[in-house]
């Protein structure tokens, strides 16, 4: 029997029981819809979370003071731990593959300009802050030189602070008072919005050296090292660890690589997506039972036809293939309908609730369709075997 003939014969029986075929296919379609819908939402969340975490760039290594031991939190600036200093940051700048090192600390202070006062977050950063975090300066620029002893009193404003204090005027060159000191405005950041609840626009950014003085902090909260994308992250981490140990005498700091953190996060999210997909898979199982039922009925109804096929020279195997083909056709078409329905509903939900991230990877769609066909195959085996093993004489006698 040639393949096109097999398709023709199985389609003919599919078409002659339209309603029944439709309902059986619907069982599989609902299962596939559930799988596709749930995994689409799972995958959408996955991408949303990863995008949220990786928008500062992925080739960043974060160094914090204090070694994270098996228990206990970050020791920070108290205890016997040596704080991370600006000199530490300078020392790392010359390591291979390192593109920039950004010393970082933050605090709260009152800022005043144009007779208005605002309490806002003060970020003490290096001059490479914007490039390291792939953030953009809207007007002006960051300070160019970095003098740890005598950092100049420059400030870059977040867009919200600029709006509140300098509404309608160009703030560049104006002066701003932070905690009683005068700072000259040299740049304004582009609006960035909230990141994990922190308003990136309601900030003022000053050189880290001045921030330590202003906020009365002995050390940095963290350093962000950005390295060349082509470099091996482990090699960079090794180099940093060695350098800092040399300076501190022991490993009293913690290194977190963005890449490794994202890997862990990503694998956790993968498991979640898979788990919700598996939940949808339960309804696929119900669809499989539907196919099993309908194929069992079909074999019984068409007993005399099976006898005829055998009399006309069909081998047992051919009879089996015909019925398996029908089961697979039912599930394949049901699966396709489910795919369309699942993607449609997912996109519809996204359209109704734009905040709900939705994404259907092609790989999942292909996998879902393949599993639909496989389910048809498995559900069809038992009835098809029964059809193939019928006694032709008995079968022909059945009306």
């Amino acid at each position, binding site marked *: 029997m*040639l393949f096109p003939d097999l398709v023709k014969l199985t389609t003919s029986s599919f078409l002659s029981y339209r309603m029944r075929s439709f309902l059986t296919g619907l069982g599989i379609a609902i299962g596939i819809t559930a799988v596709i819908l749930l995994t689409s939402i799972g995958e959408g969340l996955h991408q949303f979370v990863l995008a949220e975490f990786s928008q500062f760039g992925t080739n960043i290594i974060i160094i914090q003071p204090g070694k994270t031991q098996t228990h206990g939190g970050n020791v920070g600036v108290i205890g016997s731990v040596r704080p991370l200093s600006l000199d530490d940051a300078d020392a790392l700048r010359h390591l291979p593959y390192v593109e920039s090192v950004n010393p970082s600390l933050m605090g709260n202070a009152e800022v005043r300009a144009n007779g208005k006062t605002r309490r806002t977050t003060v970020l003490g950063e290096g001059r490479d802050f914007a490039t390291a975090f792939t953030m953009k300066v809207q007007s002006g620029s960051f300070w160019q030189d970095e003098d740890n002893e005598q950092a100049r009193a420059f400030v870059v404003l977040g867009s919200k602070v600029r709006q509140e204090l300098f509404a309608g005027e160009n703030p560049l060159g104006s002066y701003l008072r932070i905690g009683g000191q005068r700072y000259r405005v040299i740049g304004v950041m582009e609006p960035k919005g909230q990141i994990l609840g922190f308003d990136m626009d309601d900030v003022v950014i000053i050189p880290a050296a001045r921030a330590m003085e202003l906020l009365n902090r002995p050390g940095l909260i963290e350093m962000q090292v950005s390295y060349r994308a082509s470099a091996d992250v482990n090699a960079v981490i090794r180099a940093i660890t060695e350098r800092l140990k040399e300076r501190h005498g022991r490993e009293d700091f913690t290194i977190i690589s963005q890449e490794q953190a994202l890997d862990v996060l990503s694998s956790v999210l993968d498991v979640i997506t898979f788990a919700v997909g598996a939940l949808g898979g339960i309804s696929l199982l119900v669809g499989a039972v539907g196919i099993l039922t309908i194929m069992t009925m079909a074999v019984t109804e068409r007993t005399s*036809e099976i006898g*005829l096929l*055998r*009399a006309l*020279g069909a081998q047992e195997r051919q009879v089996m293939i015909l019925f398996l083909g029908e089961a697979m056709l039912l599930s394949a078409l049901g699966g396709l309908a489910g795919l369309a329905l699942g993607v449609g509903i997912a996109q519809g939900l996204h359209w109704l609730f734009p905040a709900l991230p939705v994404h259907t990877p092609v790989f999942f769609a292909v996998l879902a369709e393949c599993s639909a066909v496989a389910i048809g195959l498995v559900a069809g085996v038992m009835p098809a075997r029964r059809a193939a093993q019928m006694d*032709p004489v008995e079968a*022909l006698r059945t009306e």
Partner: protein
Amino acid sequence: MIEFADVSRSFTVGDQQVAALRNINLNLAAGEYVSIMGPSGSGKSTLLNLIGLLDRPSSGTYKLDGGNVSALDDVQQARVRSEKIGFVFQAFHLVPRLTAAMNIELPLILAGIPPDERKTRVVKLLENYGLTDRADHRPDQLSGGQRQRVAIARATSMHPAVLLADEPTGNLDQTTGKEVMNLLEQLVEQKVTLILVTHDPLLGGRAQRQIHMMDGQIVSDNGSSS
């Protein structure tokens, strides 16, 4: 052509062995026209099923064209059925959802014959049996006579050496029954071995060789080649 040597067939009914055929010895020559008659339960259908390789003898050997076909496995028997044997049934046994043309094509499809050749054969058969304008009709749109003509066309599509007809006119009225018989008898002229099973002596009387059966045994045979 067909040689039965000491063939028996028994069935187990409950815990009893019931003999449907007892020690049948029978030789049929190629191109012979044979009718097998007898009351129901005489074993004539069982004999037909054995000849058609739909059933296996409990004992004895069956040779077709000199080869011992009772020793073949299922796949080989299916091939022999496909290539050498055609069936015509009382109940027509057409596939209801396929057109007349597709029904005729079915044995060719199962045998894996290429589409081009199938098409020419089917067109010719439709023409021979006066079904050309009925090619796209489904069985429920055909009269009884037309249905049986489709069935005969289907049975001959693989050019079988043996044609087995089990009460082919049983579901037809007198006139169409006669038409169908004429079509079958034309095949004998083309050297097809026609074996007709019937309980109607009038119909069976048309065959040159007549075999009567009773209780699983041949009670009379006017044939020459046995």
